């Protein structure tokens, strides 16, 4: 408690005198100082309107999909059986189960990307963005499989039984094993971007969306939410009050389930519209519906938001999965390929359907084209901003109480994602600077500070920066995956052979 009060007091004196102007200043400084980086990452491919980084992720996912022979389809049923515990040795009871590995990694990805990110995607890219988002989710399953298998294979195990792993470890060790140069350099570059990604997408974006939702529904100024979130995260990651994180980890899965049930209820209430909604999604995916950039605009938005939501190819999940003790790296890869499916193909699609079905996006009745507002976004029924407010309005149009429940959910999702990403950030940080409490503390303090910054800055600056930082992780991760995928293939073939011969046996 001592820590947290000191932190609150320190930040409060900064914020109180003139909250609005300080928020504006931070906002401007933020936009100015990160603009060049964002522009570099999202530069278009020459002669096209497609950011090269989006193409990079999709091509990566396509390559892995073909290289592993549509592993996401072939291994889907087997992956479900692993998660159910069919292949778990009863002697390993008490160790992390495949189900726990899956849910722990999901808690880092299921969250605001599913609620806010999808709303941003459809409000810029129209209903059609949903189609491309689902496609990206399905392809991303192969990327996730590749990176998580490698994460387990090349992790570091320490004498005390703890484990460190993730792209920085497989890049370094895997490259050395294959006799390739630059492994150490790429591992460091990945770590730098992982730290930035943790501060951006894993932190500021979350804080920003939580704060704006709490402000629009409950009228609490963003800087207060920023301070509160910052304070609680501080208590958990610096003060070591694990009970808060534990409570959240227990509540968040039920929140996720509750979100899904409410969404399904809205879809069922409007069952006669579901056919129309899918029609809109297909129409938007392949024709120009009047959005900025036309059909390509829908593709970009869909792919961008899918990647941001399920993090396939980014390398973050490999950090979480490598902590699991398993004899077979491949089985961990199989478990992880379910994540983009649950996250994007199921939950994100549901959010998009709710927004489309409740007709939040305004369509010109005569032309069938979307009506755009001054910012080039699709005008919505309630006139609210993109992101959580739009999802909130969509849910609210069906159930009056939904926005309040959603505020709680957004707050908890934001919190749990931050906790998970602070873990990723610390792992990348200690990879670069070595393990040690003081070194971790420096990162953790910065992490808490950026929560506040994220809460008070404008949506666009924050979203752009968080996307840019997250996607930069993918640059080095995917290069490494290309070089290391033959190793995964060897593992995969051996695993499948042993599964067939009964050497890997089912226990239930």
């Amino acid at each position, binding site marked *: 408690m001592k820590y947290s009060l000191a932190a609150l007091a320190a930040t409060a004196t900064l914020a109180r005198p003139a909250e609005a102007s300080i928020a504006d200043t931070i906002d401007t400084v933020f936009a100015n100082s990160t603009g060049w980086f964002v522009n570099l990452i999202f530069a278009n491919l020459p002669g096209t309107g497609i950011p090269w980084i989006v193409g990079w992720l999709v091509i990566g996912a396509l390559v892995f999909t073909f290289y592993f022979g549509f592993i996401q389809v072939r291994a889907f049923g087997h992956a479900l059986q692993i998660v159910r515990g069919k292949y778990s040795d*009863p002697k390993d009871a*008490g160790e*992390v189960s495949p189900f726990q590995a899956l849910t*722990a990694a999901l*808690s880092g990805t299921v969250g605001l990307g599913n609620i806010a990110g999808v709303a941003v995607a459809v409000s810029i890219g129209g209903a059609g963005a949903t189609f491309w988002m689902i496609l990206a989710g399905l392809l991303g399953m192969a990327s996730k499989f590749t990176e998580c298998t490698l994460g387990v294979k090349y992790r570091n195990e320490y004498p005390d*039984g703890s484990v460190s792993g993730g792209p920085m470890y497989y890049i370094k060790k895997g490259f050395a094993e294959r006799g390739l140069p630059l492994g150490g350099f790429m591992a460091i570059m990945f770590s730098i971007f992982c730290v930035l990604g943790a501060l951006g997408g894993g932190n500021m974006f979350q804080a920003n969306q939580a704060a704006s939702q709490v402000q629009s529904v409950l009228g609490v100024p963003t800087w207060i939410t920023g301070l509160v979130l910052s304070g609680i995260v501080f208590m958990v990651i610096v003060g070591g009050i694990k009970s808060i994180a534990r409570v959240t980890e*227990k509540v968040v899965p039920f929140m996720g389930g509750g979100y899904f049930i409410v969404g399904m209820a809205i879809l069922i209430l409007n069952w006669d519209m579901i056919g129309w909604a899918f029609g809109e999604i297909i129409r938007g995916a392949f024709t120009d519906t009047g959005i900025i950039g036309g059909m390509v605009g829908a593709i970009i938005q869909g792919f961008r938001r899918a990647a941001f939501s399920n993090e396939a190819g980014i390398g973050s999940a490999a950090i979480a999965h490598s*902590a699991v003790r398993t004899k077979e790296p491949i089985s961990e890869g199989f478990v992880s390929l379910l994540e983009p499916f649950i996250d994007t193909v199921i939950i994100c699609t549901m959010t998009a359907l709710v927004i489309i079905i409740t007709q939040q996006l305004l369509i010109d009745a005569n032309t069938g084209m979307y009506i755009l507002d001054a910012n080039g976004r699709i005008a919505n029924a309630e006139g609210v901003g993109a992101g959580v407010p739009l999802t909130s309005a969509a849910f609210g149009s069906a159930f009056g109480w939904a926005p309040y429940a959603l505020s709680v959910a957004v707050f908890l999702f934001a919190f749990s994602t931050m906790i998970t990403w602070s*873990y990723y950030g610390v792992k990348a940080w200690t990879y670069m600077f070595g393990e040690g409490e003081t070194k971790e503390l420096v990162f953790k303090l910065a992490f808490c500070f950026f929560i506040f910054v994220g809460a008070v800055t404008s949506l666009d600056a924050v979203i752009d920066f968080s996307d840019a930082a997250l996607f930069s992780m993918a640059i080095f991760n995917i290069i490494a995956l290309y070089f290391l995928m033959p190793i995964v293939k060897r593992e995969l073939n051996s695993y499948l052979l042993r599964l067939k011969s009964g050497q890997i046996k089912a226990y239930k």
Partner: protein
Amino acid sequence: MAEIYLIAYDGSDTAERALKYGAERAKAAGAALILAHVLEWSPYSFLSAEEVAERHKRRKEEVGRAETVILDPIRKKLSAQGLSVSTEVRYGHIAEVLCEMATEFKATQIIVGRTGEKGLQARLFGSVPATLAQVAPVPCTIVP
């Protein structure tokens, strides 16, 4: 064939009573004892990323503590009395694990203390002795 008694033992008062009862019968019948210490564990609970990372370490600590603090002293004490005693630490749903162990070690009897759960908790989740009474593969003695 010699009798083998499987006794659930967690160091609590009720477990002591079950153990005392089992040890007396074992001396009379020349039976061997297996002391089972089962830690409640579900593979379907939720863990945070950090808990996942620390799980193996924690498990080692938990097993170590169960062996050195709870099981070793009692095994020495009973062995000194001339009984044949072995100990096991397991994870899982307690009643299920006891049943599995009974089959695995060919135990002829399971002995547990009555835990005395009352009210809502017992109604919702049942208790270990009540579950064993219904599903145990061998005779089960519940010591009050």
